[in-house]
């Protein structure tokens, strides 16, 4: 199973009764896999802070609970995280966080181990699917034994690699009684000041436990090399790939707090110690602080992900023989799908040469050529708040040339509060919600505006129109992004208005099962005048061959937007 499925199984077999998460690659499958267990509760929350607090509530009530997110999600959940360290838990609680070294699908490559250190919460770090399963179970034990939430840190290569897992019997369900304990759970200054020493004492105890815990282990080398390596996570696999059993390895499963004595003993058993860890020098800094002389980031990068090649290079081993040809292979970046509803709207924004503050989702792909339709992407929700600031700084002239775009899921996640600011402080901002009725980018998860829950059952549905109206946006309009004329007219009207406004661009994602593709279009070569207007649209189905446009019938879903672009009616066919 993939690492994420192993985490889901480990949590379930470890007695987890409640999971609340927000999707984010590479963490999403943990929650999706957990949703298949019918006797446990599982949900998508609107964002990671809500998810974490919901899981905390379940723990407070006495059940084992978890929440899962990607590394940047932990930024959103950081507020409850730091104070949950003080309150501790009732039922065990696990926070799964997935880092993305190499940024396969993220906006940064922050190292979430810093959160464990800063919030004084223990963190476990598996290196393959079997450990993902075992560590998820162990996390609940540690959580309850030491009265602390536990962080379980994944990374892309552990989360998305499949390897064999042996599962064990499911633990008994935990149901602890709920007790009113104001001094533990009401973190007013007077109570919190008394909890802080508890937190410090807990760190000390967990560090002591980690000295002998089976989650950390020393693998003695066969003596053929006399140096040793301290490592964890997927870096451990690369070390073993390159060196096999020839070096001694201290493989850390608990990466916070770190075992001082174990590290010192290991260091004195070898001639020299290397620390091999992706991203920041967390283990290395600790070693240096306790006076253990190690090499690490002088040999290894703090950026990107590692592989066996990284290790071999750093240790001066030879490259493997390969072949190459000197043909330039054009890049193949991801792009908006054929028939993607976002494309029509972006075409209109680009055509009107508007400044567009963007957000995170499939629509971030609108930044790519030929549309080049975006000016900014920062983090989820930042489009709306950023637009407000941009407009108050730029005044009238800016307001009439600037909009922001945000997806339905992202709007639910953290766009709402930004829009409240727009309404409250009355900037003449035009916010465009790209409502494709799904969380697209992360692979189709339901969200509060879709009307379905994680299991696909009907659920509460937030009306975007009513929500915007109720916070004080008087001008809320809905457009169909397949209708370019309508989009163009409404966008122009709304940016002219001297009041905040919202345009909802609504059409479901073409990849949704209930969206039936229409017949593909084709180009009549006699009518095509090779003006290439349709090529400015960036549709992957349309290419240019033998001096006229052609449509790839295996990709085209018959959305018909191209017919609105062609002045010569060269596109034919389509419909049902």
């Amino acid at each position, binding site marked *: 199973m993939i690492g994420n499925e192993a985490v889901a199984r480990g949590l379930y077999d470890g007695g987890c009764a409640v999971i609340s998460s927000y999707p984010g*690659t*590479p963490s*999403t*499958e943990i929650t999706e896999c957990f949703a298949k267990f019918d006797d446990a509760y599982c949900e998508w929350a609107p964002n990671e802070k809500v998810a974490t607090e919901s899981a905390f509530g379940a723990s407070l009530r006495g059940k084992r609970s978890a929440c899962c997110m990607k590394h940047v999600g932990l930024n959103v959940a950081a507020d409850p995280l730091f104070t949950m360290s003080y309150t501790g838990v009732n039922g065990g609680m696990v926070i799964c966080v997935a880092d993305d070294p190499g940024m*396969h*699908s993220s906006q940064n490559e922050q190292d979430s181990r810093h959160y464990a250190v800063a919030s004084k919460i223990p963190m476990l770090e598996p290196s*393959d699917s079997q450990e993902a399963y075992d560590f998820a179970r162990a996390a609940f034990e540690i959580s309850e034994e030491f009265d602390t939430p536990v962080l379980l840190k994944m990374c*892309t*290569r552990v989360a*998305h*690699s*499949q*390897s*064999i897992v042996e599962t064990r019997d499911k633990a008994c369900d935990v149901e602890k009684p709920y007790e009113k304990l104001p001094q533990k759970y009401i973190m007013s200054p007077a109570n919190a000041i008394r909890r802080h020493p508890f937190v410090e004492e807990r760190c000390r105890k967990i560090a002591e436990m980690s000295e002998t815990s089976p989650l950390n282990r020393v693998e003695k080398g066969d003596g053929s090399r006399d140096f040793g390596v301290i490592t964890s996570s*997927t870096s451990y*696999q*690369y070390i*073993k*790939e390159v060196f096999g059993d020839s070096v001694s390895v201290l493989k850390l499963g608990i990466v916070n707090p770190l075992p001082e004595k174990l590290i010192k003993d290991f260091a004195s058993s070898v001639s020299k110690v290397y620390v091999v860890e992706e991203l920041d020098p967390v283990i290395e800094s600790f070693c240096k602080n306790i006076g253990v002389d190690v090499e690490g980031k002088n040999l290894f990068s703090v950026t990107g992900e590692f*592989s*066996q*090649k990284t290790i071999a290079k750093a240790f001066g081993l030879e*490259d*493997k*023989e*390969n*072949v*190459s*040809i000197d*043909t*330039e*292979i*054009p*890049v*193949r*970046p*991801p*792009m*908006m*799908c054929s028939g993607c509803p976002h494309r029509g709207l972006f075409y209109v924004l680009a055509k009107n040469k508007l400044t567009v503050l963007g957000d995170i989702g*499939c629509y971030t*792909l609108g930044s*790519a*050529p*030929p549309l080049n339709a975006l000016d900014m992407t920062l983090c989820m929700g930042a489009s709306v708040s950023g637009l407000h600031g941009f407009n108050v700084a730029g005044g009238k002239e800016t307001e009439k040339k600037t909009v922001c775009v945000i997806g339905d899921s992202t709007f639910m996640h953290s766009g709402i509060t930004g829009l409240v600011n727009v309404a409250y402080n009355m900037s003449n901002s035009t916010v465009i919600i790209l409502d494709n009725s799904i969380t697209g*980018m*992360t*692979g189709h998860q339901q969200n509060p505006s879709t009307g379905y829950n994680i299991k696909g059952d009907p659920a509460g549905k937030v009306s975007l129109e009513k929500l915007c109206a109720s916070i004080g946006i008087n001008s809320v309009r809905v457009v169909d992004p397949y209708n370019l004329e309508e989009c163009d007219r409404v966008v122009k009207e709304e940016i002219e208005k001297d009041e905040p406004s919202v345009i909802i661009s609504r059409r479901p994602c073409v*990849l949704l099962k209930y969206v039936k593709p229409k017949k593909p279009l084709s180009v009549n070569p006699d009518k095509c005048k090779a003006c290439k207007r349709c*090529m400015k649209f*960036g549709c*992957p189905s*349309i*290419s*240019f061959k033998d001096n006229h446009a052609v449509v790839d019938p*295996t990709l085209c879903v018959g959305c018909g937007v191209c017919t609105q672009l062609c002045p010569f009616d060269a596109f034919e066919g389509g419909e049902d």
Partner: protein
Amino acid sequence: MKTKNIMIVGVGGQGSLLASKLLGRLLVDEGYDVKVSEVHGMSQRGGSVVTYVRFGDKVYSPIIEDGEADCIVSFEKIEAARYLDKLKKGGTIVVNTQQIDPMPVIIGAAKYPEDVIERMEEKGVHVDYLDALKFANEAGSSKAVNIVLMGVLAKYFDIAYDKWIAAIEKCVKPQFVDINKKAFELGYNYTRS
């Protein structure tokens, strides 16, 4: 046994996930330690996608690095060339000759290199290529390109035909088993003339 490395490369949406699932199932059933690694997330967005399949007595790294791949299976004509660095000297490439233009080619910012297969052969790479889409259609579905290519790949393995078929039966939805068995057979029996 020394670890063996297979790469599956293609364009998002082409069905490489099923191919790697099939390989994984087969190799686990054969008693190997197996790691299959792919990066999800952008896979449906028409980008370049790559899956690593590694098997042997004990597999550590989930990644295949330069000069390590025994075989690269490419679902599209130029994708194999993109990852050629990964191929071991003397390795094999299985290529579907289907051409899917990437966006820079569509908008005229780059040229599609038509001669990649010849260029790879010039360098002594063993390239086994075919129009897998044609065979998939013959089997009954254009979606079966993945299984046609698995049929070709199977010729380079020491695993009995029946075991592959058994793995297909386990991995494919019942209503598609027949089409996929046919697709596998067409790929397996294909020899380049």
